[in-house]
């Protein structure tokens, strides 16, 4: 039993280390302009991001990301509730929502530019708008799949409308809302990068794209690495939040599996 745990731990930690080592040694003497040595990439990473452009670019990008995502989350859940609870509203905007959802958010960026310019508002608006849909759709799905049994309980014990929304519908739909939020976060991340391709060339996405266009491949790799690390960390942060809020759901799922 113990041996298995240790073995798993070794495998789990060892493989990434091994892969990094392989990358390091295989690329060490690379002359290919597109695959520079890992060492060069890491040096550029340190020079570029720690902490030269940290404030001006990294924080700027992250600020837009979080602001846009927060707006999307609040609006998505709110609109989702209204849509789910008022059938005529749902019938009216459902087709439009699914239509808009099929449009790549990146394709909308030029339209936003022409409508609201290319400043921070444009970036935040495009992030928020694109990230709104997954949360909203998940919220509607979540509310509609709340079991009738729970709603019957709420009626039998005569819970008020407010209690029903806050104490039954919201928590019951939470697991689905969270998976919607997770998709929203991914979309927000994508649009964050895309929105930086135009306007003032500040931000991680803009710098990475610029590095690519001027053939500074080490810089481009450093940017990709940074974006990967940020995506990873943001995802971990989100998972922690989810674990806290949905501890009951995760626990019950685990229980159902182990039973």
């Amino acid at each position, binding site marked *: 039993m113990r041996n298995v745990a240790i073995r798993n731990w070794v495998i789990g930690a060892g493989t990434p280390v091994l892969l990094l080592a392989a990358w390091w040694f295989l690329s060490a003497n690379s002359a290919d302009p597109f695959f520079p040595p890992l060492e060069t990439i890491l040096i550029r990473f340190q020079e570029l991001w720690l902490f030269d452009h940290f404030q001006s670019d990294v924080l700027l990008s992250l600020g837009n990301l979080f602001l846009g995502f927060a707006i999307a989350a609040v609006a998505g859940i709110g609109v989702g509730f209204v849509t789910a609870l008022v059938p005529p509203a749902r019938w009216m905007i459902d087709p439009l929502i699914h239509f808009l959802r099929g449009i790549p958010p990146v394709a909308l960026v030029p339209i936003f530019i022409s409508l609201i310019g290319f400043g921070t508002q444009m970036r935040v608006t495009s992030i928020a708008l694109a990230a709104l849909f997954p949360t909203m759709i998940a919220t509607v799905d979540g509310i509609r799949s709340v079991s009738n*049994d729970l709603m*019957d309980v709420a009626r*039998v*014990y*005569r*819970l008020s409308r407010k*209690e029903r929304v806050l104490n039954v519908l919201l928590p019951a739909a939470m697991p689905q809302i969270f998976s919607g939020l997770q998709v929203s976060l991914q979309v927000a991340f994508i649009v964050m990068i895309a929105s930086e391709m135009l306007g003032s060339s500040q931000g991680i996405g803009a710098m990475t794209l610029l590095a690519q266009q001027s053939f500074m491949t080490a810089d481009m790799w450093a940017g990709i690495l940074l974006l990967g690390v940020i995506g990873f960390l943001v995802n971990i942060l989100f998972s922690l939040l989810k674990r806290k809020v949905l501890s*009951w759901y995760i626990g*019950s799922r685990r229980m159902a599996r182990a039973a």
Partner: protein
Amino acid sequence: MSARQVPVLPTRNRKSTMAQQPETRISATTPRLDVAHLAKTYGSGDKSRTVIEDLTFTVDAGEVVCIVGPSGVGKTTLLKCLAGLHPASSGRAAIDGRTISGPPPEMALVFQDYNRSLMPWLTVRKNLVLPLRHLKLPPAELKERCDSALAAVGLSHADNQYPWQLSGGMQQRVAIARALAYRPEILIMDEPFASVDAQTRFDLEDLCLKIRNDFNMTILVVTHDIDEAVYLADRVVVLGSRPARVLKVVDVELPAPRDQITTRSLPEFARQRTEVLSLIKRPA
């Protein structure tokens, strides 16, 4: 489990027509619950399906009535009509003469799907508290009600656990405790003891009889277990055929303080259960 040593549930303090009019308690002329020519059809048009056609029976105040009948006959449907969750298609169900048109405030319902009727995101205690919120009770009483209800079903130790951390039988008891903490005047339970082991089942049956005595609660129980029906009930309503109708209402005449060992070994008990059994066993 110590349901037999049930802590005394304190007398309820909610306004109660019953408590204020003690003379009606024994009066058989004003039934507490009155089901008259009740019919229920699901759906409409081609897809309509009549589950209950013409059901008539009454439940007096302070009575325990059990409903038995084959699976799918419409027992749960009947209870949902009584609880005001489904409107009756015709006929009527009334409490104290008032026709039921929405969930009546003096009633609580323990659902058949106990595992789906508990909120999985709330601990056991919070599940009990949820329906009590809008009663705006003083905190001390709130706590006291939950404590005694949990003690009554033998789950005092589990109050901080989540429903999904409990075994099926324990979940079922949480659903019962929630109804007890609500202190209804009429308690309706749909196969409430289906998932508990024999010992706990006996304890809960006795708890049921005890709260009836202590609070003069009116109790309606659906069960598949005919022994249980006979042991618990003052009267057993036997439902049969589809659409559902009352085959017979059997009056159970067993001596008053019932006891799991002695009551069940009475010859009269055997006679009564055989009667119900033969009603059910006849070819559909």
